[in-house]
């Protein structure tokens, strides 16, 4: 049987991720786990995350899961990052006074500027960026299959990823300015939004992940 490991490092709503994965069709077993062996043996791996980056990275390191995530990335098996899980895949985050991250993607994670404004009407925009925003699929990818262009997904975050390239941005979103909604490299796909909270569109993305063979 196909197994999907949802990495458990004590951060927030990983159960929602697991429930959404269990809900989509397919012959797969979902394991919420911090067990190195189970994660390395799984066919697919999800790195979820909510909360602050400092706690996120220190827990990953304490459980020795930072190296495990890198091993999964190198193994060619499909790896999905969600929200803070995606941010943790960059090199560095400005959150909590600066935190070194996993470095699977080059680039940094930055806070939204104070006094963020809508360039169209100069109206002040609230932070966190919270709610349903439209994702522009900037490249074709198996993870976008059967998801319409500009579909809305649920976001909630106060920091955003600023990849340095050359990894392709797979999706972008506009809130005051355009930034990364999804990033992809080989067998890694990572999203800033919460597919597990994005109704049918989010479930479709998880269904695509269950089918994805890890090739872009």
């Amino acid at each position, binding site marked *: 049987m196909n197994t999907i490991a949802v990495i458990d490092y004590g951060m927030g*709503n990983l159960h929602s991720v697991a429930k959404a994965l269990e809900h989509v069709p397919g012959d797969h077993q979902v394991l919420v786990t911090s067990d190195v062996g189970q994660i390395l043996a799984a066919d697919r791996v999800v790195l979820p995350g909510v909360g602050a980056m400092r706690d996120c990275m220190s827990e990953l390191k304490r459980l020795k899961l930072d190296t495990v995530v890198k091993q999964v990335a190198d193994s060619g098996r499909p790896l999905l990052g969600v929200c803070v899980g995606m941010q943790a895949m960059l090199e560095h985050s400005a959150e909590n006074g600066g935190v070194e991250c996993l470095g699977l993607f080059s680039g940094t994670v930055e806070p939204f500027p104070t006094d963020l404004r809508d360039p169209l009407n100069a109206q002040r925009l609230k932070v966190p960026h919270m709610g349903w925003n439209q994702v522009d699929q900037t490249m074709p990818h198996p993870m976008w299959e059967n998801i319409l262009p500009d579909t809305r997904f649920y976001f909630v975050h106060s920091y955003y990823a600023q990849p340095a390239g050359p990894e392709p941005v797979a999706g972008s979103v506009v809130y005051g300015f355009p930034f990364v909604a999804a990033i992809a490299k080989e067998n890694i796909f990572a999203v800033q939004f919460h597919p597990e909270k994005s109704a049918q569109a989010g479930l479709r993305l998880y269904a695509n992940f269950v089918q994805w063979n890890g090739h872009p």
Partner: protein
Amino acid sequence: MGLAKRIIPCLDVDNGRVVKGVQFVDIRDAGDPLEVAKRYDEQGADEITFLDITASSDNRETMVHVVEEVAGQVFIPLTVGGGIRTVEDIRRMLNAGADKVAINTAAVFNPEFVREAADKFGSQCIVVAIDAKCVSDVSQGNGENKRWEIFTHGGRKPTGIDAIEWAKKMVDYGAGEILLTSMDRDGTKVGFDLELTRAVSDAVTVPVIASGGVGELKHLAEGVTEGRADAVLAASIFHFGEHSIEEAKRAMAAAGVEVRL
């Protein structure tokens, strides 16, 4: 093109059942929170809020089960409010599948609780609920000096605290969102207190949910266009089958408000 304004139906839950007479034509058991939540999800609700109206410790276990059940089948954000008093209360609700908790009375008694909760779980899941009532004498003067104060215990107990100052303080303490209810308008069906909503929304950097007073669809759009709210919450307008969420969204879109359709 951009972030949609949210419509949030609110379900009052008493001992595991939705109360206040939810009436959907084709739902036999109208009091089942899962059935109601599923229906709202199908209609396009952007989030769902559960308010535990008894909030006794016995009832807490029941609410945890309700959240678990709904979170396993409804994949949109869920907020739980009512009787959230400790870090342990929050942890249990989040582990059950809630995405946010709304803190009201406990924040007034101990503002540090909000700071502790935001530090532990992140601001994104800490909503501070504010029940505000106008206390200035509007018959005097031109109304420009209106003041609102916050009330606790479901709006029964005055605190003497200025609502706008309180909202700012709660954001400083780590609230990621403000759920603002006008006690003057709650249940009146004459529309939101737009002055209050605008005053709070302009004063804080985080999203504000307007609540209290929705009686017609046009009130929802007004909360956004005139009240500058980021989201609107309503209960009875949806519960009694008067309007669906979809109708509400179409009305908001027609009024020029960006929504998820």
